[in-house]
């Protein structure tokens, strides 16, 4: 339901089974869903994906769908609540697998195989399946079995060391950025493998820590090219101060950057700041050493300017600038509105929810204007078992009675 009706969705006909219990795997499958894949979230009948329990929980939503993280990363999927630890559950899974192109999972290495659902087991059922595994350190190597949460993966990657205030504690990129980055890499690799002319089974093994180690490659290159270990004084740039530093204005913060084509003379004119030249800031080194003075000079000019005034005026004049917006500010952004950048997530009996879309326009329109809201646990068990796998009512009843399957009542509660 995520497509316009005049053109085929990009990933029409691609079916994904999402076994994830971490947000990175869930996000990987969600990205594919937004481009038109049919994603079935296969989750335990008792609690479901642990992401469902991740706070904050939002009152007013159905009990198993209250997590804000769940509403984001599990949007546009259907939920089948199925116990894969039981033989009868695995039997159902194998039936479903016959219809699937991709399986996404985030268990510790070896866990799926221990349940008879390892890569070799899956390919025996579906010879061209692509299994995508996302774990902190990957499937093999000395630390493959180790635990790692988002901040821990950011630490191992080298990214965390470079992030934070001058002289302060390394500070992570919040909201599960390592998981999200790994999820994007996973989706790219998996999607690529489905483009083979003659499809065969593949196992994609994504490391969350390595995903973040690709982000700022320079720190690695400084070491491998000249033996220098760089701290970059955390976030402050070493060669272009004021380059993205935040400056206080009337109602928040703006950021300037010296990259992007404007000369210092043009900054002098725009801000009426002859000091930029008279105090020697035309030399980059001087900007590095005296950034506090630079900040003082600029902030004196920004005190009675609002973020939006600043942004409109400077950007129209061709300066590359930014303003600090809150996530809530984005919902009111006229530009994002004009571009239909948000998908509308719909669920019966729930208020409409806007979610960031795939990040691009396809032939001038959103690829995913309307999506399903994240499902309640087992919301689609019945339609998948009866409608798609063709199970008889008696079989479904038995699976439910035995607790192998859970099916939410109609209406999603």
């Amino acid at each position, binding site marked *: 339901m995520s497509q316009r009706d005049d053109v085929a969705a990009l990933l029409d006909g691609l079916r994904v089974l999402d076994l994830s219990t971490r947000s990175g795997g869930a996000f990987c499958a969600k990205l594919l869903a937004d*481009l038109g894949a049919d994603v079935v979230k296969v989750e335990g009948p008792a609690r479901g994906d642990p992401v469902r329990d991740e706070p904050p929980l939002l009152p007013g939503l159905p009990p198993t769908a209250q997590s804000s993280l769940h509403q984001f990363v599990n949007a546009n999927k259907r939920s089948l609540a199925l116990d894969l630890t039981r033989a009868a559950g695995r039997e159902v899974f194998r039936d479903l697998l016959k219809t699937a192109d991709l399986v996404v999972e985030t268990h510790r290495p070896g866990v799926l195989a221990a349940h008879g659902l390892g890569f070799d087991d899956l390919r025996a059922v579906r010879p061209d399946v692509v299994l995508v595994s996302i774990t902190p350190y990957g499937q093999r190597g000395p630390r493959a079995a180790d635990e790692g949460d988002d901040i821990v993966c950011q630490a191992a990657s080298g990214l965390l060391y470079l992030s934070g205030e001058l002289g302060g504690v390394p500070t992570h*990129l919040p*909201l599960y950025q390592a998981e999200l980055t790994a999820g994007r890499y996973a989706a790219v690799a998996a999607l690529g493998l489905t*483009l083979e002319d003659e499809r065969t089974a593949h196992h994609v093994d994504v490391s969350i820590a390595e995903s973040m180690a690709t982000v700022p490659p320079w720190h690695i290159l400084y070491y491998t090219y000249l033996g220098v270990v760089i701290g970059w004084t955390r976030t402050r740039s070493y060669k272009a101060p004021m380059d993205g530093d935040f400056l206080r204005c009337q109602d928040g913060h703006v950021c300037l950057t010296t990259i992007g084509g404007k000369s210092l003379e043009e900054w002098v004119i725009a801000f009426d700041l002859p000091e930029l030249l008279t105090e020697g800031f035309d030399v980059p080194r001087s900007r590095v050493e005296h950034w506090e003075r630079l900040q003082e000079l600029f902030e004196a000019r920004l005190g009675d300017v609002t973020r939006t005034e600043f942004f409109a005026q400077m950007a129209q004049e061709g300066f590359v600038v930014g303003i600090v917006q809150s996530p809530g500010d984005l919902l009111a952004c006229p530009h994002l509105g004009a571009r239909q950048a948000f998908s509308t997530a719909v669920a019966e009996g729930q208020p409409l929810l806007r979610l960031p879309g795939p990040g*691009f326009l396809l032939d001038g329109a959103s690829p995913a204007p309307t999506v399903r809201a994240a499902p309640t646990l087992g919301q689609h068990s019945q339609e998948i078992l009866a409608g798609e796998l063709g199970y008889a009512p008696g079989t479904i009843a038995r699976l439910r009675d035995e607790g192998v399957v859970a099916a939410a009542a109609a209406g999603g509660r």
Partner: protein
Amino acid sequence: MSHRRPLEGVRVVTVEDYLVLPHATVLLAGLGAEVIRVESDARVFSRANGPFPEGQASEDWWNHGSSYHSWYRGKQSLVLNLATPEGRAVFLRLVDRCDVLAENLRYGSFARLGLDYEALRARKPDLVVLSCTGFGHTGPWRAYGAVARTIDALSGMSFVSGAADGLPLRGNPSYMDVTGGLNIAMALLAALRRRKRTGQGCRIDLAMYESGAQCVGQAIVEAQHGLTRERMGNAHPAKAPHGCYPCAGRDQWLALSIRSDAEWQAMKEAMGRPAWADDPRFDRADGRLAHRAELDGQLGTWTAQHPAAELAARLRAAGLAAAAVQHAKDVVLDAQFRGRGFVQRIDHADPHLGPRLYPGLPYQVDGQAVELAEAPRMGEHNDAVLQGLLELPPEDIADLQARRIIASAPARRDAVGLYSPVAIDLDQQVTVGDVVEIDPAYRERLYG
């Protein structure tokens, strides 16, 4: 990868600079696509941006920048002046033989070159055309310039990053390049999949700003339910302890996340049950969250007595999520990254480069790391493309060369603005605290 790679036979022409699109096309090259970068001899940002070997820009520095060699692996180089009619004619012939055309010039630049997306698609209906800019090609902000840093601020990422009592934080100067690049790759692969089934081309208009919004999707959901995601440093709304804790030595840290009461008990055991940790207020998650400051303080005092790597190993052995906060040298020498083949060695034939290590791709296929070929010298594939692919007669190629419509070196070898290829002044960097360590034995350590 030993198997035939999935994008073999797919040809991509890309007019790219900076990082966002180059990151996407590296991924396509890794999947087997033939990626031809059409580059300018006047705008050489990507080639001028170091660091250079041993911090010294050589005579022909444009073939030696490490960031160039990292982000342009697996591609071909055609230096072609698109500002001339002859250059454009060659470009159009090349587009005719490609499946994908991608560009990340500023909004309007492509049109000013006389290149029009709709005309290109009319010429070749199954072409997949992608543009990437900060804000996309529609909407009121379409003509505004952007770089990853400003997108970080605009997208909400900076707002949610940083200490509770501090300023918003741009956590990483290039994160938005990587997120945008990944979304470009995804869009192109999805478009190629549909094209394979239906023969249909398409136009993709990607905005980095919207990829940024995706990064804070959870907080955007919360905002619609009246919750504002506040900055909270390294803390987590449901997990404590969660953060970076100081360790023995200068600027040494341990990252730790305790995700359950059982993990807290295991943590206590691993610490040897210090008296402060036996406080019953800390037994349950709600108590640890309510007394987070006290808990973090006590824990930080304890961690400060131990070396980070040793502590991380001890805690991981106890089944906990912990790691030393590693810097570049740690990452390059890390047994896990090395063992998996994430850190890749390229033995450059060019003696000015020699052997060098690079970060690879963070995924393996069927147990194999993805190999990426060395980045091309400037104009290395001029002949292969013009003669081999486009079948231009040698005299035409010589003519293009003579008129500098094709080239194999920058038009100007000196100034290229902010990113002039100057040697790095290490003393200066030590002054401002940027250099943590200079390892004089790094060559033997890495390449010996």
